[in-house]
């Protein structure tokens, strides 16, 4: 173990894992995400990608290993504490607050960085009013970056699909995270939208100075924008490296295309 690596990594994950009953959903998962890194996490369906995210965000508690964010241990914290520590995420199956307005969805996420007292709320104290106003300003600023300021007063459930995905990212950014976890942000998008998305993910990273970890099924997108890629299969990390290393790893090809049992070698070409 090199100390150099642990100091440079913003999010340092070492050997976390969880099993449900007999099923080892994720095992010995490690990743070292540097500041401003844009890493990818891929794998076939059911490989444990989302479970890995759930472990990182505290939805599930890891049974092994440790996670540090900017030098602070976070693996035993609760989800809201992890969010406060600086990890934000989006969800594979969009989880917006449907009844709330678009603006309120984002304002809710700003909540994390504010101070809330019951007395202040009831009296509408100057600090409370200023904070609400600040939340509105920040939320509007974020919404305008994603072109959502026109629909700020709409209920989130009424937005078209693509806008909902954007709003999820926007909401995650409002928590002022250090690390952003994106769970299949391109799911259900057409190729043009995907290209735009790839651009905006990079833009987000540059503009907000974040590290991003991305789960994605679209290989083209991942290979294009990620600096390093980790491949999961059956809960195990089978390969980790640059896009070209991953692309040529026989184990990855095997995981994606399977091995024909009678044949000796690997069947199939590029991923």
């Amino acid at each position: 173990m090199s100390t150099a690596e642990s100091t440079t990594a913003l999010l340092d994950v070492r050997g976390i894992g969880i099993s449900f009953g007999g099923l080892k959903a994720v095992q010995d998962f490690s990743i070292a995400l540097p500041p401003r890194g844009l890493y990818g996490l891929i794998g076939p369906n059911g490989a444990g990608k989302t479970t890995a995210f759930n472990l990182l965000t505290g939805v599930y508690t890891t049974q092994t290993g440790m996670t540090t964010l900017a030098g602070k241990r976070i693996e035993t914290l609760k989800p809201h504490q992890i969010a406060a520590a600086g990890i934000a995420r989006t969800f594979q199956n969009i989880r917006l607050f449907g009844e709330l307005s678009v603006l309120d969805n984002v304002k809710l996420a700003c909540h994390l960085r504010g101070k809330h007292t019951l007395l202040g709320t009831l009296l509408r104290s100057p600090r409370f009013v200023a904070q609400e106003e600040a939340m509105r300003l920040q939320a509007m600023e974020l919404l305008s970056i994603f072109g959502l300021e026109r629909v700020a007063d709409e209920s989130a459930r009424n937005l078209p699909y693509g806008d909902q995905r954007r709003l999820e990212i926007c909401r995650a950014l409002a928590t002022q995270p250090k690390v952003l976890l994106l769970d299949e942000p391109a799911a259900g998008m057409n190729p043009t939208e995907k290209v735009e998305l790839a651009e905006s993910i990079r833009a987000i990273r540059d503009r907000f100075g974040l590290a991003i970890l991305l789960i994605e099924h679209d290989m083209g997108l991942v290979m294009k924008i990620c600096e390093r890629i980790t491949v999961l299969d059956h809960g195990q990390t089978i390969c980790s490296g640059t896009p070209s290393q991953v692309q040529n790893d026989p184990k990855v090809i095997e995981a994606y295309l399977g091995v024909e049992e009678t044949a000796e070698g690997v069947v199939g070409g590029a991923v």
Partner: protein
Amino acid sequence: MGIRIRVADFVQTLIAAIAVGSLYALVALGYTLVYGVLKFINFAHSDIFVLGTWTSLTAAVVITNKMGIEPEHAPWWVAMCVFLLAIAMCATFGYCIERFAYRPLRGAPRLNVLITAIGVSLLLQNVGQLPGKTVAESGGSPAATIPFGAIPRNMPALIEDRVLNETSVAEGTMAGGSKRGTVKLDQNLTIEAERQYRIEYVKPPAADAPAGAQSSIETLNVVVAEPGTIAAGEEISTQPRRNAKDVEGTKYRVLRSPLVPIRLIDVLIVTGSIGLMIGLQILVFKTKLGRAMRAVSHSVETASLMGINTNAVISFTFVLGSALAAAAAFLYPLKYPLVNQTAHGIWVLLGLKAFVAAVVGGIGNVRGAVLGGFLIALIEFFGSRYVSTELRDVYVFGLLILVLLLRPSGLLGSTAREKV
């Protein structure tokens, strides 16, 4: 108090707890089965139980009235009929509630289903309480009224309770006492300390009774101050105080009460419930239908993809749970004859106890519900016997809080994870 009495008292409490515990378990099974397949608390389940008690009561009253017999002398098949009617009624209601109130909400947020369940529960409670026909309206004769739910009533003793393990210590022909309320036996009788004795004798029909009247078996309790031997021909006081002439010349038996009386009703309740529980175990774990139920419990979607008719399985689960509640509801008033009106708080508490039993055992777990049922009853009965009777309903609630704090998934339950 002698050690023998203390032990006997303990065992008696234990027996009562086991009898009531098996009823709690039957009701708890209904909560757990429905929770297993649909993951929500069927608030109306306790009302199904109440429906069962009232159906039993009404059926028993109506059938015995129509046949013109005393409930105590009803043949065994009347009880069977009442039992089956209660089951049929509850099963029908269980099916209808699922079909018309819960099924339209399949896939709706959990809160809505919960509110609907509360609505159904209240509907049953209050419809049951609607005043029925009064005696005057229905034409005078009390036999013509159909009792249901509005005012508390006593369940007719379809199955007469008796102590099974009494021992006969003397037999013979009685001589009347010299004054009212005393009798003479024609045999010596040894009275032991801390025991009760009663005289059972056959009372012939009165002289002015209509033809066909039967002789009946009557009981007199022996009233004695001191243990010792009562010689043959000595006068002893009895309760109730019968006219000495009435009992003269009748055959009698003197029965000594056991230290731990085992009652027919308790035996019936325990064997009946345990039989049903074993049947349920076999159904759930050994049959194809049971496998389908477990599959639906695991995941409704996957089960339906596997070709299981999930709606039918869910309906069946409701019917099954309701039938178990009905069985408990038939047995319960045999032990506690007073049946309160349908919206009475006592039913809410009873339902709560059964629910707590399900939670303590691990909700969704069939064996857990049985375990929980017995556990709850043990705590309730021993708590009220040895700590405080008045707080008997509070213990259960305390236990619920404790379980929620320490082991929310229950004793046998496993934690289910929400999919993200």
